[in-house]
């Protein structure tokens, strides 16, 4: 096997998707054969409100270069209000990451409904592009977790 030394940087993206809207949206994108990069790894959560700030940090620790959280549109939460709480939490967390000097473009929240397969694909394409431009996550990496 030939190893290409100059291989292009591919980011690792973790997407937390709520079970009721965004995961179904991702599904729809798939069944409609829409393209979005394979760099996106989806983690299904019952509700965007399930996403503990710790999850975001852990994703970075284990090698993610960007983390995106997707949930139902505000007002459409399966549990009525989960995404409203999640919205406040993520706003504060992202603001803190920015305060610590960690590139703010590495984190994002998008509301994607079950019908928005196209939006899901477009969002992921755009997010992967942004993170690819930023390059490897250096500021919130855990050196112990680097594959040797």
């Amino acid at each position: 096997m030939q190893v290409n030394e100059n291989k292009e940087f591919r980011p690792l993206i973790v997407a937390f998707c709520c079970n009721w809207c965004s995961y179904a949206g991702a599904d729809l994108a798939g069944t409609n054969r829409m393209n979005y990069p394979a760099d996106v790894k989806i983690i299904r959560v019952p509700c965007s409100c399930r996403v503990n700030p710790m999850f975001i940090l852990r994703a970075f620790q284990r090698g993610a270069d960007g983390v995106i959280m997707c949930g139902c549109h505000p007002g459409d939460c399966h549990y009525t209000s989960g995404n409203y709480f999640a919205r406040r939490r993520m706003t504060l967390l992202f603001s803190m990451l920015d305060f610590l000097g960690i590139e703010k473009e590495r984190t994002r929240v998008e509301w994607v409904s079950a019908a928005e397969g196209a939006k899901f694909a477009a969002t992921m394409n755009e997010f992967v592009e942004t993170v690819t431009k930023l390059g490897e996550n250096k500021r919130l990496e855990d050196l112990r977790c680097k594959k040797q």
Partner: protein
Amino acid sequence: MQEAVINRAKELLADGTVNRVAGWKTGEFSFDTTPAVFTSAEELDADFVYNDFCAPNLSKYLVKESRKEGKLLVFLKPCDTYSFNQLVKEHRILRENVYVIGVECTGKVDAETVKLKGIKGITSMESDGENVTIHTLYGNKVLPKSETLGTKCATCKSKKHVAYDELIGNDGEVDEESKRFEVVEKLEAMTPDERYEFWRGELSRCIRCNACRNVCPACTCESCVFDNPDSGIAQKAAADSFEENMFHIIRAFHVTGRCTDCGECTRVCPQNIPLHLLNRKYIKDINKFYGDFQAGADTISKAPLNDYTFGDCEPSIVYSRGGNE
């Protein structure tokens, strides 16, 4: 002041209103005071102090003390009353078992601040409210009190007592002009690279002694997530720069909306990391995004993270806004 405080404590002990008194005890030096519980007039006479060196916040001790038998008298400074209220709100302090006397505070002298001025070998300090006389092994010095205050007092937010059964001394006002967000604003105005450098420099000193967590009146979990081996984050050591960042982000996040900005975290840090800046950043964001909120100002309002409105700003506000907004 101290005399009035001791006399009142003795009265309340004598008439049976309370059976214990929580306050501060003299140490080996006049400036190292230790929180203590007193049970008799003799003990009060021997050791009780209330002066310009009583910086420790007593509220957190009440979580345990208020669950013991009998009623406890506690002396709280204005900033301590905010922590007290917050703990009452969270049902961590049993209010009916505590008799609160608010005591006037004009800011506390911090030995570390004095030492940073290059003063060595301090054997005692006296404060007359205006000036602090410092006796050292190498001679005496006098400093204006305003120059000897610790960070928490230099940027005091309020001299108003928000919870008390009675007051000794005067009640103050909330300082609307407080400069407490000044440093946060300065950091926000920096470029991300500069901010990153700044925080690496500060957080890389962390030795994970947990003093900031253990002293924090908002951190009252029976078992902390950082001590839970099943959490996957109980590493006990700042073994990697990631651990340092994570510990401090999560520590501050866990008290977001509950932190009253009492400043104890920064006061106790053995490495002098300005930890309060992380908490203040969250407070400043909350004020800006969700309207002004002061944790501990009352015992009924909903905490910002337990609440929402339909029109809350989107997280994207973080990338759309400019530097110091």
